[in-house]
C-alpha cells in the first residue's frame, strides 16, 4: 500500500472510524510491513499531538460547562431578551403617547376656554353681555358657555330652505321632549 493510504487508515483507526474487521486486518498488515508501520506511527503521532494540543486549549470549555447548571442558559437569556424587547415596546408606546398628549395639551384648570372667550366668539359675545357684572372668573366662562346656543343642534331645523312641514315636525319633537 502507498504511504497516503497507510496514513489515512492510521487516522481512521485512531478516530475509531474503522470497523473491527478492517482494524484487525490493518494491524496485521502493519505487523508484517515495518515501513508501513513506521508511516502509520508517524501519522498517529501527529494525530495524538494535535488532539492533545487542541484539548489543552479548549479544556476550559468543558470544565466550565459542567459547573454551570443547564437550565440557566440559554433559555433564561432567551426569556430575558423577550422581556427586554417587550419592555422596549411599552416604553416606546408610552413615549409616543406622551408626545401626542403634549402636542394636544388641554388648557389648565382655571384658564378660560377659547371657545367661550367673549372677545372672539360672536355667540359668546352676545350672551356674555348679560353677565358683565359677574367679573372675569372661571365660573363666568362656564356660565357663558352654558348660555351660548348649541349650534350643532340649532343649525338643522332652521336651515334655509327647510319646508314648513319639516319645521312643524321639529316643533312637535321638541315639544314632546319638553
Amino acid at each position, binding site marked *: 500500500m502507498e504511504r497516503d493510504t497507510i496514513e489515512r487508515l492510521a487516522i481512521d483507526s485512531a478516530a475509531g472510524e474503522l470497523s473491527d474487521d478492517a482494524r484487525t486486518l490493518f494491524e496485521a498488515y502493519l505487523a508484517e510491513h515495518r515501513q508501513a508501520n513506521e508511516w502509520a506511527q*508517524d*501519522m498517529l503521532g501527529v494525530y495524538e*499531538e494535535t488532539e492533545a*494540543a487542541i484539548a489543552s486549549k479548549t479544556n476550559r*470549555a*468543558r470544565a*466550565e460547562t*459542567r459547573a454551570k447548571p*443547564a437550565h440557566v442558559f440559554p433559555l433564561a437569556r432567551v426569556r430575558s431578551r423577550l422581556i427586554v424587547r417587550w419592555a422596549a415596546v411599552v416604553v416606546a408606546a408610552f413615549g409616543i403617547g406622551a408626545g401626542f398628549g403634549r402636542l394636544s395639551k388641554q388648557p389648565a384648570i382655571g384658564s378660560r376656554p377659547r371657545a367661550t372667550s367673549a372677545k372672539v366668539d360672536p355667540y359668546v359675545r352676545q350672551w356674555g353681555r348679560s353677565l358683565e357684572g359677574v367679573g372675569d372668573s372661571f365660573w363666568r366662562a362656564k356660565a357663558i358657555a352654558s348660555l351660548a346656543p348649541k349650534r350643532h343642534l340649532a343649525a338643522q331645523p332652521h336651515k334655509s330652505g327647510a319646508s314648513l312641514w319639516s319645521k312643524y315636525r321639529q316643533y312637535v319633537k321638541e315639544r314632546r321632549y319638553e
Partner: protein
Amino acid sequence: MVNGLEAQFENLWGQTSGQVRAYMFCACRSWADADDLAQDCYLRALRGWNQFNGTGSRKAWLFGIARRTRADWFRRGGKKATVVELAGVDKASDDPKGMDEDLAEAIWQAVRCLDDKQSEVIHLRFAAGLSYAEIADAAGVPIGTVRSRLHKGLKNLRQRIGEREYGA
C-alpha cells in the same frame, strides 16, 4: 415555549454546549467571544428548531448552524491568525504525561494557519469531538471529503511543525 421542546432543547444544550464553546473558541480565541458566538448559535437553533428535517443527528444539525455562525463572525471582521514562525519549537517536556506548552501553542497556531476547510474539519473533530458522519452532515460534504481534508490537514501540520518533532 412548549415544554417538550424546552426539554429537548435543554437536553441538546447539556450535551453539546462544551463542544460548541470549544469549537467557537478555536475561531476567536477569546472565551467572551466564544460565549457570545455559542449563544448566537443556540438562539439560531431555537428559532429554526422545526427546520430540522430528521436526516442525520440533531448534533450534526446544530454544528451546521455553528459553522454558519462562525463564518458570519469571520465575515463581520473576526480576526484570523496570521502565519507564525514555528522554527525552533522544542518538544521536550519535563512532564511525560502533560504536553509542552510551546508545542501545544505551535500546533494550535499551525492549525489556525491551515486552509479553512482543513482547519474546520480538524476543529470539528478534535475540539467538538464529532464523528466523520457528523462532520459530513454539518459541513454538507461526503464522508470521503472529510477523511481527505483531515488527512491533508494533519499532513500539512506535520510539515509545518517538522517531521523530526514526531517520530516512531
